[in-house]
């Protein structure tokens, strides 16, 4: 542990040195601050929304009416200030190179024609109600990731990584935790898509989001048990409030893989009698062929994706109703070169510097592949009470159908090798009370609620996890008190989980079942204090738990793609996390940024422990693993710093350091993200000829070698070499160079957003520790991407 301390100390020293030696910033780092008050009462309007039209992003006023929007680029913006029962106020502001702008308090006029008024509460990010470490991606930063999967997009944030299975499957990792330890809230609904599998990427259309928010660390109080690693919120853009039809077209193309993405959205609002009613239709098509490493194509890495969604809202000042449906359909080819029959094949493949089969480019998509379909239906209603407070009820049903087609040798069948159908129903009820003033000018705000869930899973063909039914219920309450420069928040939650798994006795052909139930109570406590107007310190401590899932308990089968035989353990106890975070945020004239440290201790951390003896099946020997529990710690530092050299030239550095340890066995944990440093030098012009918001940037990403991994050891078993820890040592460190050019071009009344970018420009051949196919092939080589976004506004029908 001394080494760990030294490293942390070194890093802290490094950052302090950097912050002293650097000199200043960039045009997209302006922070806008302000306050929203009611003209009638001169009281702060808690929960009022601020919406930047051009960026389609916004913020929500806190418990004393203050709001803050960061990462604004230079330019002119129109900002809408809205609140229930008040008339919307639209003001324009001009942002230049200042790092921070504080505008005069905005006063909203009460609206008496209330039924005419459309109330929009959706602008605000749900997560902003929580005093927890969070990062988000929206506006221009989100546009830069268009066309990528959710997992890849999030990697531009500190503390986030992804576990990949070849180039087409990417699974988000927060502070070293993934799968069921993360909750993804897709449009407010907890996404349930067999996320226990390491090669199961989330089925979420990234184009649905106008903001991706990540809560780092245990956040289970509000969002449910399981979230011991964090929560990812995929939040759509606010529904239109004005009459008329608008739309948006996104086109993305990339040279590597011949990737083509087209996404279109159409939305509308109504006036007069139908005021308050709004709709949106959206769809995305993606096609990619074989991805190329610097030296060869990766056979069968093609994928397809077809998504559609529709949204219908009705809102007025008293209540609102929403119906939402989305469908996500994908077919993902798995790299053929990673298909091995046994451990012996795996070693042969590892010893090969390049895959054996190196075909030319193709869009062909054959076995092995995954075909996954996800349907989501959501109905939500809320009521604003006259005395204050809002009651929201949500019901959602999801159906996830996953079919995995393996490589077949001789059977010539058309059926999949694995088929899973998971149907989930969730019901949530949340009460948000009206803010209460305290005698010393402080304010209480908070919410309480119920979450219910039930799931049924039906499997077919090979056995990997059993059929099951589960029920879960949770009750929570969160209360926040804000006074002066201090905000304090506390939360409590109680959960009950019930799980029954169904099996077939192979001899008697009778079905039998096994039942588990668990319950647990958890809490969180946080505080934020503004030390100086430009310096805020936030501290948070929370506990969270996760009941073992059906894969942890009852997996029993050969994971052909993982070259592993996995055995569940029915005696597992729930995981219990104790998570502390400390974040210092600074917004100076030239230097701005955020440095956070975290410590997440997990008791009964569930992981796959290698068995001492391999298992022998028809194809030969396989290493076997059994789910086991240890005490694990995940500690690290996330640091984002921006320095403006001039008003136009800025340097941003994002650093994520993670130190994970198995405290029980005094060893490292497998599959822990190595440290990374993402550095970006950017030059902006607010106007250049007919172009606006023009920028060029140069990017350098350094990912170190994971030196903190279990030692790779070999031993002889029945004449076979058996590896423990891992099959091969972690790959070397790598450095990738990228560049980007972006601007807005005026096309008549529409403004076209153009981004031209290049990734891995030096065409470096490298492998990533977190790619499960790293034993077989290199990562993708150079790619040039073009991203176009065209907002459309159709003339109003009067």
């Amino acid at each position, binding site marked *: 542990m001394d080494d760990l301390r030294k490293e942390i100390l070194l890093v802290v020293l490094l950052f302090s040195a950097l912050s002293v030696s650097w000199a200043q910033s960039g045009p997209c780092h302006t922070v806008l601050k302000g306050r929203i008050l009611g003209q009638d009462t001169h009281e702060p309007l808690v929960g009022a929304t601020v919406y930047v039209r051009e960026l389609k992003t916004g913020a929500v006023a806190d418990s004393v009416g203050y709001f803050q929007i960061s990462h604004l680029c230079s330019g002119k913006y129109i900002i809408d200030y809205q609140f229930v029962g008040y008339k919307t106020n639209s003001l324009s502001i001009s942002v230049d190179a200042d790092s921070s702008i504080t505008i005069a308090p905005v006063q909203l006029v009460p609206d008496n024609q209330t039924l005419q008024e459309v109330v929009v509460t959706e602008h605000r990010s749900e997560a902003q109600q929580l005093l927890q470490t969070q990062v988000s991606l929206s506006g221009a930063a989100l546009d830069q990731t268009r066309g990528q999967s959710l997992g890849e997009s999030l990697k531009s944030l500190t503390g986030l990584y992804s576990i990949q299975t070849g180039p087409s499957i990417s699974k988000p990792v927060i502070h070293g935790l993934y799968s069921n330890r993360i909750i993804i809230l897709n449009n407010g609904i907890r996404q349930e898509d067999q996320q226990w599998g390491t090669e199961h990427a989330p089925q979420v259309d990234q184009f649905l989001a106008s903001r991706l928010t990540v809560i780092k660390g245990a956040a289970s109080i509000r969002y449910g048990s399981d979230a011991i690693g964090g929560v990812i919120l995929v939040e759509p853009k606010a529904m239109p409030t004005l009459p008329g039809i608008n739309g948006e077209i996104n086109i993305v193309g990339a040279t590597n893989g011949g990737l083509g993405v087209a996404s279109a959205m159409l939305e509308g609002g109504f006036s007069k009698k139908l005021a308050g009613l709004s709709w949106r239709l959206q769809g995305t098509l993606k096609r990619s062929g074989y991805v190329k490493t610097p030296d060869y194509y990766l056979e069968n890495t093609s994928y397809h994706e077809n998504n559609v969604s529709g949204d219908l809202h009705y809102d007025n000042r008293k209540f609102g109703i929403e119906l939402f449906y989305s469908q996500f359909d994908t077919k993902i080819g798995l790299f053929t070169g990673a298909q*091995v029959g*046994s451990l012996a094949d795996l070693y042969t493949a590892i010893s090969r510097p390049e895959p054996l089969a190196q075909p030319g480019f193709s869009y062909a998509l054959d076995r092995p592949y995954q075909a996954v379909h996800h349907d989501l239906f959501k109905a939500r209603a809320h009521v604003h009470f006259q005395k204050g407070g809002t009651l929201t009820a949500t019901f959602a049903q999801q159906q996830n159908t996953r079919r995995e087609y393996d490589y077949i040798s001789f059977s010539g069948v058309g059926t999949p090798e694995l088929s899973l159908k998971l149907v989930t129903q969730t019901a949530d009820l949340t009460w948000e009370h009206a803010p209460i003033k305290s005698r010393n000018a402080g304010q209480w705000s908070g919410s309480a609620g119920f979450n219910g869930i039930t799931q049924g899973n039906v499997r077919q063909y090979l056995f990997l996890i059993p*059929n099951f039914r589960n029920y879960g219920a949770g009750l929570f309450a969160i209360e926040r008190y804000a006074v002066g420069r201090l905000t304090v928040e506390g939360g409590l939650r109680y959960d009950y989980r019930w799980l029954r798994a169904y099996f077939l006795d192979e001899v008697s052909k009778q079905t039998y079942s096994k039942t588990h139930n668990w319950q647990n109570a958890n809490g969180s406590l946080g505080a934020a204090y503004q030390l100086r107007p430009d310096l805020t310190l936030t501290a948070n401590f929370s506990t969270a738990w996760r009941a073992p899932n059906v894969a942890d308990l009852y997996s029993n089968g050969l994971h052909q793609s993982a070259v592993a035989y996995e055995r569940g353990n029915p005696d597992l106890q729930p995981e219990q996390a104790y998570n502390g975070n400390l974040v210092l945020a600074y917004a100076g004239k030239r230097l701005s940024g955020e440095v956070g440290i975290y410590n997440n201790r997990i008791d009964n951390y569930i992981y796959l422990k290698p068995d001492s003896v391999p298992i022998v099946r028809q194809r030969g020997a396989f290493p076997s693993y059994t789910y086991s529990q240890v005490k694990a710690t995940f500690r690290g530092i996330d640091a984002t710093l921006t320095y403006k050299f001039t008003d136009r030239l800025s340097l941003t550095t994002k650093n994520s350091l993670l130190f994970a340890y198995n405290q029980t066995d005094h060893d490292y944990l497998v599959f822990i993200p190595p440290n990374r440093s993402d550095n970006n030098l950017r030059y902006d012009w607010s106007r250049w000829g007919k172009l606006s918001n023009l920028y060029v940037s140069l990017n350098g990403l350094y990912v170190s070698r994971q030196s903190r991994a279990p030692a790779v050891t070999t031993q002889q078993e029945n004449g076979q070499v058996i590896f423990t820890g891992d099959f091969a040592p972690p790959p070397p460190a790598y450095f990738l160079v990228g560049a980007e050019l972006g601007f807005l071009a005026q096309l008549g009344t529409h403004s076209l957003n153009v981004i031209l970018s290049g990734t891995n420009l030096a065409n470096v051949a490298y492998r990533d520790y977190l790619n499960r196919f790293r034993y077989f092939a290199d990562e993708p080589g150079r790619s040039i991407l073009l991203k176009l976004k065209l907002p459309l506004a159709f003339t109003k029908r009067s």
Partner: protein
Amino acid sequence: MNYVKKPFLLFGLIALLTGACTKDEQNVAPTDDNEAITTATLTLTNKATPTDIVTATIENLNTTADFSKATLNLKVNTTYTGLVTLLNKTKTPTLDATQEIREKLNEHLFVYTPTPATLLTVTLTDRDTNPAPGPYPVGLTTEIKTGAAGSGKLKVVLRHQPTVKNGTATPGSSDLDTDFTVVVK
């Protein structure tokens, strides 16, 4: 506010009803492995006396293999013609995998490795239809010669080598990898 409370009750009811009515998970489908090989049989026929037929079979290969009938009892200095048969008994009716392999000769190769190497000499006697530099051997049929008395093992490996078959065992992946016991006396 009664008129607004009703929808919430309705939501709750829908949630409960839809949750409670699905019983699909209670009908458990049996495990079904398309690519299972449950049974491997070697049939060796004495070339000189065709009535002298030796067979050895390994059962339950896809789970815990049963080697109780897996011994080939052979005569010294004798030439046999060998035939391998693979079955998938998890399917009804039983699937003859060798028949399927015969239809995809160009993707498959059987590799026979005796230990000690002097125990047997195995020659593959069939050919696929791969274009030049093929055709390559397949190994569904073999010629097996015994030498002096001794005992050991015969490893049988089935390699699946789509698009990469080159006459060697190296490319592709294994569909089968098992050992027969051999006694020569």
